[in-house]
Structure formats: C-alpha cells, structure tokens
C-alpha cells in the first residue's frame, strides 16, 4: 500500500483532483437542473437538434484538420479561413445578386448548386495556394515553423478578405423553400437543420468512400502512413498532399454553405472560432480518423448546445449560454489531458502529441 502511494506522482494527483472537480460540477449541475426543470420538453428537443446540426458543421470542418494532420502532422491553423473564404466570395458574387434578381427563389436548387460550386472552388484554390506558398517549402523544417506560418496564413487571409469585401457582416439571403419548421414523428425541427444534417451525412459517407475505396484515397493513406516509403512506392507525395488539402477545403466549403443557410450571415472573422472548435472536435474524436472527426463534431456540437443549460443552469450561473465556448475549450483540455488519443483514435503515439 505504501509502495503504491509513493509511485503516485504529485502531478497525477493534481490532475486527478482537477478531473474530479469537473465531474462533480457537471453531475451536481445536471442534478440541480433536472430537479429545477426550468425548460419544457420541446426546448430540450430543439436544443438537441440544433446541437446535432451544429455538430455536423464541426464534423465537416474537422475532416480537413484530421486529413491534414494525418498526412503532415501539423495543425492547419488556416483551415477556418478556407471555410470562410469560399462562402464569403459566393455570397458577394452570387447569392446577393441572385436574391436581388429573384433568381434564387425561382430556381432554389440550381442556385444552391451554383453557390456550392463557387464556394468549393474558391476554398480549394485558397487552400492549394496556401499549401504551395506557406507549407510546402517548410515540410522539412522544425514543427514550430509551419505552425507559425499557418497562424500567419490564417490572419493574412482573414484580413485579406476583410480588405476585399469590407468588414461589416454580410446578410446571406433566406431561401423561401427552406424557411419554417416541419414536424417529424412529433418532433418539430427547423427545415434548415434537416438540410444540414442530411447534407453532412451524405458528404461524410462520400468522403469515407473516397478515402477508403479509390486509388487516390489509397495514395493519401499511404502518405499518411509513411511519406518516404510512399514515395518509394511510386506515389507523388506532393500531389497526394495537395489532394488532401483540396479534399479538406472542399468539405470546409460545403460546411460554409450550410453555415450560411442556417445563420444567414457571413463575416470575415466567421472562420476562426469554428475552426478552433472543429479542431477540438477532431482531437475529441481522435485525430487522423475520419469517423472520429464525425463523432467528435457531433459530441462537441451536442455538449455546446445542451451543456450550458444542463450543467450550468442548475448551479445558478446567470446567462450560462455566454459560457458555451468555455465548455468547448474545457472539453478540449480534458480530452488532451486524459485521453489524448480521442474517442476513436488508436495510433496517436507520444511523438505526435
């Protein structure tokens, strides 16, 4: 018994206390909320559906982090800007003029298709440019160096697009066919949420098929496994990395369109916080794993949406929804301390953490 006690590290002890405190707060808050029961059942279901929709967006963005991290072992800090750049451009050049001319309401499907194509094209172009200029020359450099250029690229693109389109919030027109709610099996859901969830599921399945079934996908996985050996096997590593960035950015582009449909506004700063959250989601699910990113996104969206009402309301904290980002970041810290490999991750060794 005494031997065991000596083996326990002070640091471990502190971390365990930290974990215990968080668990106590969460459990206590939940019980208190449930006893108080401040919201009707309808509010809870709405919150949960909103959480799933938000989580689907995070999942789509998180794919980009996971793929790039899997291939290059770097956090692509500028990924949130890929998400922002496409939809900003499509809103300014397509959605707003189309809404003024009435084209958007007459041909909603065609318009959405056009918007999606433009968004994806711009996001992919920005991603490829960033990769070529800021990341590729530094692939052999110490790991701090590409991370710093990624931070630089992130701010560069944010303020570049601010200069291009102006700093004010841009409205994204509402599609008449997507306004309002529908009742699904007794649960009333916003139509836009259904679109987001369905689109995200389809995209994720398609992506999984692409990475697992196609030859290109195989080359990406080979490069992720070992760049040098992949090069020896005749795989063009630069091309595989570019494709990885392009795939991640196109997912981010679609997430951008869905974001605009739900929130009906775009802004040059809109990519930053969702980017960090999506990274959290990727880590939560296990970085490097595509199903992990999906699951992590879903978890994070749910926690963020339900968490403030469920955990904090009962503790008597005023305006708990202000603290939803605190919940997200606390989750990130907890995951990284106690399960750095994430929910589904298995091969995250020390060297990568």
């Amino acid at each position, binding site marked *: 018994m005494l031997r065991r006690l000596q083996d326990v590290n002070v*640091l471990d002890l502190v971390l365990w206390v930290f974990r215990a405190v968080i668990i106590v707060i969460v459990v206590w808050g939940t019980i208190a909320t449930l006893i108080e029961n401040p919201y009707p059942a309808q509010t809870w279901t709405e919150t949960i559906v909103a959480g799933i929709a938000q989580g689907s967006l995070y999942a789509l963005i998180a794919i980009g982090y996971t793929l790039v991290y899997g291939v290059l072992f770097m956090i692509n800090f500028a990924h949130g800007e890929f998400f922002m750049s496409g939809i900003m451009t499509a809103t300014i050049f397509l959605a707003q003029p189309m809404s003024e001319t009435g084209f958007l309401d007459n041909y909603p499907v065609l318009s959405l298709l056009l918007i999606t194509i433009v968004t994806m094209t711009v996001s992919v172009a920005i991603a490829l440019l960033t990769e070529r200029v800021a990341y590729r020359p530094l692939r052999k450099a110490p790991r701090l160096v*590409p991370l710093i*250029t990624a931070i630089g690229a992130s701010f560069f693109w944010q*303020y570049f697009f601010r*200069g291009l389109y102006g700093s004010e919030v841009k409205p994204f027109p509402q599609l008449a066919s997507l306004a309002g709610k529908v009742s699904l099996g007794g649960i009333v859901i916003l139509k836009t949420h259904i679109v987001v969830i369905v689109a995200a599921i389809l995209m994720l399945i398609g992506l999984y098929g692409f990475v697992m079934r196609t030859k290109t996908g195989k080359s990406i996985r080979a490069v992720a496994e070992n760049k040098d050996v992949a090069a020896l096997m005749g795989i063009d590593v630069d091309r595989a990395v570019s494709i990885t960035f392009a795939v991640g950015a196109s997912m981010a582009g679609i997430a951008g369109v869905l974001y605009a449909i739900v929130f009906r506004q775009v802004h040059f700063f809109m990519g930053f916080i969702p980017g*960090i959250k999506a990274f959290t989601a990727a880590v939560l699910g296990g970085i490097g794993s595509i199903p992990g990113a999906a699951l992590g996104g879903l978890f994070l969206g749910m926690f963020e949406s339900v968490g403030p009402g469920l955990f904090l309301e009962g503790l008597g904290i005023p305006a708990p929804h202000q603290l939803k980002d605190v919940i997200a*970041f606390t989750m990130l810290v907890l995951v990284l301390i106690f399960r750095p490999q994430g929910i589904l991750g298995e091969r995250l060794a020390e060297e990568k*953490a």
Partner: protein
Amino acid sequence: MFKKQTIVIQDIIKLGLLAGLISLSMSVIGFIALLGERELIQNVISMGHVFLLAPPIALAYISAEKVLSQSKVKATLFGLLLGIITALPLVILVILASSFDIRQFLVNVSPELIELLTFGQGIFLGSVILLLVSGVAGLLAAGLRTLPDDFREPIITGLAWVFLFGLFSEILLGRLRSIFGRGLTKLIFSGKALNPLFTVFLFIVVAALRYWSKRRRLQAEERGESISPERQQRYQRIRIVLGVVTLLLMPLILGTYLSEVMNNVGLYILMGLGLNIVVGFAGLLDLGYVAFFAIGAYIMGILTSEGQLGLGFTFWTALPFTVIGSTLFGIILGIPVLRMRGDYLAIVTLGFGEIIRILALSDMLKPFIGGAQGVLQIPKPSIFGFDLVKPEYLYYIILIGVLLAWFISWRLRDSRLGRQWMAMREDEDVAEAMGINLVNTKLLAFATGAAFSGLSGGIFASKLTSIFPHSFNLIVSINVLSLIIVGGIGSLPGVVVGALILVGLPELLREFAEHRMLMYGALLIVMMLARPEGFWPSETIKRELHAHEELEMGSD
C-alpha cells in the same frame, strides 16, 4: 524560382504576372488607395505609387542579377518587359471598373484607386501611362543592378533615405517644428510631402557621403589600419553611456505623442520578454499569453480602482500582488498542459486565453470584475503625492520594468535554469534523460513569463485608467508572438527590435495601421520562409550557424 542559374523569357513573364498579382491584391484590398492619399515628394510621387511599383521593382532587380552574366542589355530589357507585364492585371482592373460597377462586390475599388492607377488621365491614356511607368520602373531597377557596385550602393542608400524621410514626414515635421521652429521645416517639407528641391539635395548628400565613406574605408584597409582592442573597449563604454543617456532623456526629445507610442512599445517589450522565455528559451508555444496580461490588468484594476469594485490599494502596494497573482495563474494554467507538446500545447493555451476572456466578459463574474463594462476609475501611479499623469512620466516606470525584465532574462538565460530550458527546447526526452526535472522547469518558464506579462498588464491598467475584456483578445497574443519571431526567437535585443517594428511603426504610419494584421500575417510567413532566425538573432543560434568558423579559429 530564383534557384535556377539562368532565366529565360518565360520566367520573366511568370515573375511579371506574380508581381502584377501582388500589386493587384494590394490595390483591391484598399492598401494602395489609402497610401495614395499621402504624397511622398510634392507633385511628383505618392506613397501609393511607390508601393504599387514596389513588386515589379523588387522582382526586376532580383531577376536582373541572374541575367547579368549573359548580357547587361538583355538584363535591362527583361526588366522593362517584367514591368510592362506587371501592369497588365492592373489595366484589366481599370477597364473592368470603368465598364461596370465593380464596387458593389469589391468595396475598396474606389474612384480614387482608379484615378491613382490611371494618373488622373482617363481610361485609355491612363492605362498606357501605367504600362509605361511600370515598364520604366522595371527597366530602371534592372538597369540599377547592372551598374558597378561603387555607384549602385550610394544610389540605393540615397533612395532609401529619401523614402524614409518621406515615410516619416509627419512625425519628423512635428518634432522639427517644435525644436527648430517653422523656418527649417518649410525648407524641407511642403505640406506633408517632401520638397522636390530638398529631395534632390538629400539624395545627393547621402549618396556622396556613402560613396566617400566607402572609399575611405577601402583606403584604410589598404593601409592595413585596424582599431586596437583598448580603443574598441573605450568605444563600447562610450556607446553604453550614450545609450543610457538617450534612454533617460527620450521623453524630452520625443514629446507627448511619441512618448505614448514608446510606452505602448515598452509594454509590448515587457510582454515579449516574458513570452521569449516561454517560447524562445523553453520552446513552449503559448498562444494564450494574453491571459496573463489580462489577469495582471484585472488584479491591478480591482485592487486600485476608485469605483464600486475597487479595494483602494495604491499602484505601488498593488504591484506586488499583481505580479504574484499572475505568476500563480501562470503555474495554475501550466499544470494541465505539462504533458502536452508543440501543436497541442499551442491550441490548448489558445483555448485558455479565450476562456479567460469569455469569463471576464460573462455575467457570472460581473459582480466581481465588471463584465462587459470592465473596471473603471483606476488611478494613475503616483510618487510622494505627485501623480504621474503624463505619458512622459509613465515612460520611466515602464523603462524600469523593461530593464528589470531584461536583467532577469539576461541572467536567467545563461544560468542553470536557462540551460535546462534550452535543453528542453531542443529535445524533451533527452533533457529528461539527462536528469532535468521537466515539471519544475516548465512551470518555472510559465511562471516567469506570466510574471512579466502580469507586470505589463498592471502598468497597462493603470496607464489607461479603465480596462475592458475586449482589450484582451487573441490578437494581443498573436502580436507578441509575431514580434518575438520577427526580432529573433530567443534573442533579447530581438524583442526590442520586433516591438519597435511591429508596434511602434504602425503607430507612426497611420496608413499602415489599417492593414496591420494583414501585414503581420504576411510577415510571419515571409520571415519563416526567408529568415527564420529573425532580424536580430540570438547569440546561440548565430553561434550554431557559424560553429565551423569558430572551430577553425580555435585551432590556430
């Protein structure tokens, strides 16, 4: 692209298009038009034109170097071609803007920009002039490169001085006027722009001085003269005394506005010195560094505020609590991240920074720290009942803080702890195997960094007399990180250089302040690509780079 030894015409076309795209980007984001409002030389050239033509000039100059060996005429003509190609995207922009209302999409393509691009001469004539001017700029740049060194260097120095004089004209104007009166300034400046006559005079004087001093140095070298060690030592001592005197008299020379700028620079130097310990010495990339600045500011604010929230301390009694409090927070926030490395550490610390800001903003802590309304009525520091209200007085408090932090950093760097930090930076596993206690070493780095940042925050709160959560966003962390990278990671003078460039310059050049973050981003990328060791690299890194030379000297 530049690594190839020879350059063919296709490369020139590519380079020209690259320069054109850079110029076009600067135009459409509004940078050029903003700078166009400032004339550099009266009725001759505006800052906008200088920056518009900077990409073709730079690329023509660089490319001429490669063609030089083939033929000088060819090099010069390539410059002309490059310049003309650069102007093509801009001409397309001008035509687009004249044919339909492009401004509803790109807010910054203003009539002023088009007028600047066409030199106010209408679409057709203006486009031709633009092509010609850009071509001539490329031609001159390439031609300059073909000149022998004896003439090239004085010309470049002269141009650089003219550019700097024009760039800082506003600030020079103000200071010269208050010191020498109006007469002198009228000779140099007309309005805010340089007087053409004075420009020519300045150029000739500087170029001639440069030419002459180089000749003299060469002659001295031929005669084999060198400076003796004793004299060198004396020079060193004189330099130190001069430096101290300048630092002490700075506010008198600079006046109120510039002192205020220096104070901001000083606060950033203080933060930079702290982050330099965390990132530069210990290699822990901390993106939430603003958290400690915020904590320092809030502790100082709450302890001294004369408002409802305040506890009635004075600046001097609150200062120790500020430093101790932020140090404690440094340790508390350091413990959870002890096991993380590199990227993960960066993103978690970023999360901490955001958590602190959101908590400060939230209603939960509003009764204690004021929420979005912040903490108001913080008194300025006072000595013996004398309030240090003016920036000139606050300067000395910040100077003392900076010197103290500098001294601590400098002593720590070569201490046992400093060497432990650097060992940890190079390789954590090896460092641990060598018997370094990683937990203590990391926590000490976080604590020291947090202490400096907290001190800076405390002075900041007292300087501004009110603090709001919005002052402590992520951009502050990014600024501090940028400045230590630009100056040189791990280098103490580098922090000062970085702070002067990144914090001081934008304050002086208001046109740049608007696009400050864009330039930080670009600067971070360019620095990492071109000069990762920074403008003033640390001794260790320099020594590593020149290790083989020292070995040779040692064997003599």
